[in-house]
């Protein structure tokens, strides 16, 4: 069976007047369907660039990306992208915001809207459908942003440090919520983060990128002994600290 997402020898260079910067060099890895993979690395190692390439927001220089076995350019599979800040449009209600993607792609069929309503209800936003973003807490806004992404039923979800704009307490809560939601919806997800404990607590596997130019330095499979793997339980498990120390060493090694 083909991998849900497969990257082969990706390199990418940024050009500016003063210099050219090799951001990614020869990056290859695969993600299985339903797997949650986190990418960690020192800041500036090209983590976000990687997601931009997969989401087709940047043209691919060298290398190939396959989604469910098809090259990115012709794949019909959809890639959902969750940004750092929630970017809910302040002049639209929560409901109008979460159906924005459906509206853009002209897919406002009744079953799609029904699913949005279901998601809103399931994740505690049903009473806030007609509220405006500024009336919601940071955590609720980030959940609304997730529903906006899920509304398009993406096959693969890309998360670009989606919790970094939140304060620490909200961050723990929201990453717990969103980790649980994604497990429940059985989504294939690729999370980019610089927070090691976030990566360990949410992901099945952690990929460590090296300093710029980013290359895959190592891959660590996360196997925890807790009963049900929610981010909250994961943080309390015995192995958590060992994984943390291992990743910490990997990142800081020259």
């Amino acid at each position: 069976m083909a991998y849900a997402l497969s990257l082969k020898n990706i390199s990418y260079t940024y050009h500016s007047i003063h210099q050219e910067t090799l951001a990614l060099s020869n990056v290859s890895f695969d993600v299985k369907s339903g797997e949650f993979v986190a990418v960690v690395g020192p800041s500036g190692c090209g983590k976000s660039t990687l997601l931009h390439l997969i989401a087709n927001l940047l043209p691919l220089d060298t290398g190939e990306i396959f989604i469910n076995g098809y090259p990115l350019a012709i794949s019909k599979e959809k890639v959902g992208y969750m940004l750092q800040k929630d970017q809910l449009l302040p002049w639209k209600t929560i409901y109008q915001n979460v159906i924005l993607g459906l509206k853009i792609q002209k897919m406002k069929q009744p079953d799609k809207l029904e699913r949005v309503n279901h998601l809103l209800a399931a994740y505690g936003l049903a009473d806030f459908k007609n509220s405006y973003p500024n009336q919601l807490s940071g955590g609720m806004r980030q959940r609304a942003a997730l529903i906006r992404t899920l509304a398009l039923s993406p096959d693969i979800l890309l998360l670009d440090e989606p919790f970094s704009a939140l304060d620490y307490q909200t961050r723990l809560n929201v990453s717990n919520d969103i980790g649980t939601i994604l497990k429940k919806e059985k989504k294939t997800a690729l999370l980019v983060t610089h927070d090691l404990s976030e990566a360990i607590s949410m992901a099945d596997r952690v990929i460590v990128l090296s300093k710029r130019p980013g290359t895959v330095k190592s891959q660590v499979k996360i196997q925890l002994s807790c009963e049900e793997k929610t981010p909250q339980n994961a943080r309390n498990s015995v192995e958590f600290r060992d994984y943390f120390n291992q990743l910490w060493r990997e990142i800081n090694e020259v």
Partner: protein
Amino acid sequence: MKSEISNEQKIYLQNIQKRKYWILVAQISLLLLLLFIWEVSVEKEYLNGFIFSSPSRVIQCFYSMLKDQSIFLHVGITLLETMISFLLIMFLTVAAGVLLWWFQTLADILDPYLVVLNSLPKSALAPILIVWLGNNMKTIIITSISIAVFGSILNLYNGFMKVDPERLMLIRTLGGTKTDCLRLAVIPSCIPLFISLMKVSIGLSLVGVIIGEFLAARAGLGYLIIYGSQVFKMDWVMMSIIILCLIAMLLYKLLHILEKYAVKNM
């Protein structure tokens, strides 16, 4: 609504209300005082009434022009020209702003031209326009447009360019095209800016219409001012200026109401 209000809160609210009331009273008294000083100085012949006119003369003049209905013509013409210029300015602003945003290269090419046209004192153009277009309403409207439109375009374009790039990225991650970016992110983000540009432009289009009427008109308040000063009918001049004050205030208030309405419905 909260039903329980503490005493301190009540006193606080009362004080705010009182202050607002006193400011209004002071504003009106100041106006009456100035009018009174003006009237008395002319009556006691500290000032020459022939040159300085006076509130009572202005009222008499207004009354007589009301009776022969000529005032409606002058005010009407000025208002009509102002509204036409204003609407055209706003239309041109949006059209040019969108065009420049869409074609970045065009914006880069036109940038120095827009900057120069914006800083140029446009009243310098008015005499040329008369020669080119003749002594008519078209000249007045184009003078007025030329005064406000370049600054307005530059401001709106800058606003378009300052829209959060992540917001545009969001539209693209949801599969949106450039048109979707414009329609769903760029234009709605700039509505408050657009309204403040409207407020500036309405004032400037009135300025432009008056300048135009100074040079090329047979009717309108600007014509009345320039003609009145030439034939020493200072009552006409003063009355026209007072009416202009009222028009300016009225137009600004109208836009203020529109702004409140737009903010509420955002």
